[in-house]
């Protein structure tokens, strides 16, 4: 393109008032730092919550009876051919694991006490804490050794309510597929303490084959296959792919199964975005102020430039280059300045235990870790960088337009 090198001129112009430029750049650095830390905190926390929810029983995607979502889980809403469904799920490149489970509600009774609870029946040979998070909260006892073992693992508050401890007998009452009431007997093999009240007082674990026997299910029958995927954000795509290939079952995402959790996260993400928008506006206002003052100080210079043949469009582009440089240099400085705090909070986290009540914090039954780590999704980091540069460009529009509107003679008179 003909004409003087505007990028070079803009670069030099940017450093004419070094102190003012550094103040503007520090505004960008501060804004980006805040945005990265807040977004990273959100990304990490919400992702952990979603993964935690998935590991609480349903996976990121649940293959289940077509009516189970709308009408609730019930023994008669089981799915057959679960082994084939597991193979189908594992054939998907984004799926890491698929586990068979029976879930539902039961009434537990011991020593004259009784209590309702949700249950998750699983195969102890196939599951550990990586797919069933409750297992990592095992405070006493052990997990099951066999899938047909007569054992039960219960929350510590549930144990207190029932007045049982390890080795004691508990009777669990279920309904079978025909609606008949059936009972099973189990000894307490483990007691869990998650910190989430709804789990500690309302959930028990059972061995899957023992439950199949009680409920009259076949060996290839269950209420769901919990599917785990590499990136929880792709749950809907994986569900759509699996759903298209299933017969007699549907693929349901975590956010369809747990709309309260999805709503909470959505609200938090929106509020973070709003917060970031305010940061962007404040940063843009600072940049606007700098650029506008810088343009107004140089009206005479722009007038001279117009006199020697610079067109209004060229002056507009010159100032836009200046704002682009401010944005780009600001982003580079922000990246450098953010690296250490990000690394610190990414590895050490922020310990919120002092702000969490003794019983622990939970959202929609999902416990929140007291130590929160900062871990931003790469695309969100890119978004923040692009947004910061875009904000500087938007802030530069009016000053740039103003520079192009200079009347040469008026500005030259300003001696």
């Amino acid at each position, binding site marked *: 393109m003909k004409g003087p090198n505007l990028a070079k001129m803009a670069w030099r*112009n940017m450093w*004419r008032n070094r102190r003012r430029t550094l103040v503007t750049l520090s505004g960008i650095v501060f804004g980006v730092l805040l945005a990265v830390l807040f977004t990273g905190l959100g990304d990490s926390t919400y992702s952990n919550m979603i993964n935690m929810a998935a590991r609480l029983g349903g996976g990121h995607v649940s293959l289940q009876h077509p009516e189970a979502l709308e009408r609730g889980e019930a023994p008669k809403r089981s799915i057959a051919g679960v082994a084939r469904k597991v193979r189908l799920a594992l054939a998907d490149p984004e799926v890491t694991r698929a586990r068979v489970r029976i879930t539902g509600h039961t009434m537990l009774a011991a020593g004259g006490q009784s209590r309702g609870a949700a249950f998750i029946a699983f195969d102890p040979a196939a599951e550990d804490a990586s797919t069933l998070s409750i297992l990592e909260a095992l405070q006493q006892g052990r997990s099951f050794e066999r899938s047909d073992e007569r054992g039960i693992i219960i929350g510590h508050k549930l144990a207190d309510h029932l007045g049982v401890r390890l080795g004691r007998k508990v009777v669990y009452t279920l309904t079978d597929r025909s609606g008949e009431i059936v009972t099973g007997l189990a000894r307490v093999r483990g007691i869990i303490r998650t910190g989430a009240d709804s789990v500690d007082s309302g959930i028990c674990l059972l061995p899957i084959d023992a439950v199949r026997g009680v409920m009259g299910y076949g060996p290839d029958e269950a209420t769901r296959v919990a599917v785990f995927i590499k990136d929880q954000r792709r749950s809907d795509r994986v569900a759509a792919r699996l759903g298209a290939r299933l017969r007699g079952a549907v693929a349901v995402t975590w956010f369809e199964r747990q709309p309260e959790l999805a709503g909470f996260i959505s609200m938090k993400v929106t509020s973070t975005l709003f917060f970031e928008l305010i940061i962007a506006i404040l940063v843009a206002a600072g940049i606007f102020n700098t650029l506008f003052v810088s343009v107004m100080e140089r009206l*005479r*210079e722009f007038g001279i430039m117009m*006199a020697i*043949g*610079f*067109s209004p469009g060229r002056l507009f582009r010159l100032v836009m280059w200046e704002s682009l440089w401010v944005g780009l240099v600001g982003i580079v400085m922000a990246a450098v300045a953010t690296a250490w705090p990000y690394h610190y909070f990414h590895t050490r986290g922020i310990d919120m235990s002092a702000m969490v009540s003794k019983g622990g914090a939970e959202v929609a039954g999902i416990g929140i870790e007291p130590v929160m780590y900062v871990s931003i999704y790469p695309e969100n980091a890119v978004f923040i960088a692009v947004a910061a540069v875009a904000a500087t460009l938007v802030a530069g529009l009016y000053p740039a337009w103003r520079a192009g509107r200079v009347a040469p*003679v008026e500005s030259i008179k300003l001696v």
Partner: protein
Amino acid sequence: MGQPIIELEDVVKNYRQGHVEVPALRGLSLEVAKGEFVAICGPSGSGKTTALNLIGALDAPTSGTVRVEGNDLAKLSRTRLSNLRRDRIGFVFQAYNLIPVLTAYENAESVLALKGVDAATRRRRVMDLLAEVGLEGLEHRRPDHLSGGQQQRVAIARAIAADPAVVLADEPTANVDSETAEKLLDIMQKLNAERGVTFVFSTHDPRVMDHARRLIRLVDGRVESDEQRS
């Protein structure tokens, strides 16, 4: 007189100062031919700078016609006026008015770059011009590292770099010492003689008037005298 490249016909220019209209030019008419070395002089407020601003398409008259190389400036768009200034008019200002972030070389080169002249030609031409105005070896200095006289030489090099039809110089010697003023005038006279560049000055400076071959005296926005000199 040859074919005029500058024509002012009954030009009136009024400025507003608050609610008052102040006349700067009151029906000014004059012509300048190619190759002339003209000084417009007169007391403060006589309309010298206003006349130069109108000729340079930096301002528009209240009434009357200003033509440069036959182009009626009132009929040109902002972009065409900008192109006219770039291609056909060179400016030398009293306060030098170089672009502070460009070196001496880049300042002189800027108008050629705006015209789209290729880099090799620009380099050759600018280096020749800087040598001609006595700035060899100072090409890479920015204006704040040049004296007033040196800055004005860069301004002259910039003004003539693009082979303009006319160079308009507004009090070009006002901010330099006598010795420098003489040197600047010698340079401009030499460029006028050797390259045929037309120069129009507005000035109070008797030294400039002494060098001029035509002296137009303005009083109260009108031509009081127009004198050809040997």
